[in-house]
């Protein structure tokens, strides 16, 4: 089954990186960005569909969610090991509990405690819209893996299983050579 999923992860698009650069898909804060930007549902959906040369792992979390914070070192490891083979985008849902200013401060404080080599943004929108669009089960952490073509290939309810994800990426890299 991994072979089949991995094949779907490949789907390289001609000039994907160039196109992504041209249309300026910079809705979320880059590595080390001290102020994670606020994004709406449409921006988030657009990001998952945007052309790119590698799979995208979209991770929903919040600073008040202990298992989410505990997962950060795993995500750091994943992104560090697969700099060219995986794009991680972390989406804070802190606004479901706190105003945006407070959410941003909490996320920033967390990222100062645990610096991360991947992108961050803060979702600003309703629960209902987000849950419907990404089929969130209601609990976090929750992650979605999209292939390079923007197709959803896997849900992770709870912490991302690092070994399983790495197996997918390993097979994917192997096939692409």
């Amino acid at each position, binding site marked *: *089954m991994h072979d*089949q*999923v991995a*094949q*779907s992860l490949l789907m390289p698009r001609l000039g994907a990186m160039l196109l992504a650069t041209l249309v300026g898909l910079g809705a979320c804060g880059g590595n080390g960005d001290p102020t994670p930007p606020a994004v709406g549902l449409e921006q988030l959906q657009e990001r998952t569909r945007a052309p790119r040369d590698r799979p995208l792992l979209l991770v929903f979390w919040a600073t*008040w*969610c*202990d*298992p989410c914070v505990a997962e950060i070192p795993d995500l750091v490891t994943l992104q560090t090991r697969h700099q060219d083979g995986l794009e991680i985008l972390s989406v804070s849902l802190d606004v*479901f*509990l*706190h*105003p945006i200013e407070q959410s941003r401060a909490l996320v920033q404080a967390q990222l100062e405690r645990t610096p991360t080599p991947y992108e961050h943004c803060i979702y600003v929108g*309703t*629960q*209902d819209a987000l*849950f419907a669009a990404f*089929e*969130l*089960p*209601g*609990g976090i952490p929750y992650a979605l893996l999209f292939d390079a073509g923007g197709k*959803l*290939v*896997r*849900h992770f*309810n*709870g912490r991302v299983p690092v070994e399983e994800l790495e197996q997918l990426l390993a097979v994917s890299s192997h096939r692409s050579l």
Partner: protein
Amino acid sequence: MRRRTTLALPLVLALAATAFAGPNDPELAIGTKGPGFELMGTDGKKHALPEFLSKTKATAVVFTCNTCPYSKAYEPVLLEIAAQYAKQPVSFVLINSNSAEVQPLDSFDEMVKLAKEKKYPFVYLHDETQAIATAYGAQRTPHVFLLDAEGVCRYRGRIDDNAKRDEVQTHDLTTAIDALLAGKEITTAETKAFGCTIKWRKAS
């Protein structure tokens, strides 16, 4: 090979969708009877489900806890709702199913302290074995199951759609309670409970 992939992908996605349902038991279905329980309350007494069903027309079984920030945010909301329905035939039963091994501040002693400190007007029960959370398919805190006088589940999910009081748009639980008391149809019978995951005991 390409054809095989095309055919296999829907299967892979279907399997992924199955896994998405999660490891826990499914939530109690609307229209089915809420499983019975007899649990120790912070008032030092054991409380069983029929005690509430026999007294009121609506019983809100709320899985919550001492520690989850989302539950803490909804604590004043539950206190407010309980006050709002104080003179109506509605029961509120709070159940803490979190493992005290995983989260010590959810121990029974800590529950007693919190209930006293906040002067809980409702019972706060300890589901030490987590059997009741499992039976209801509760997965989050807070996670609500509204039962009618016969103990049948008529609404399940969240309390409302926003923990920030000034941004609430749908008061899902109270709307369901009002409909139940009025003998009307509950138009939104299911919502997604958002919050912390119930802290399950570690497998021995």
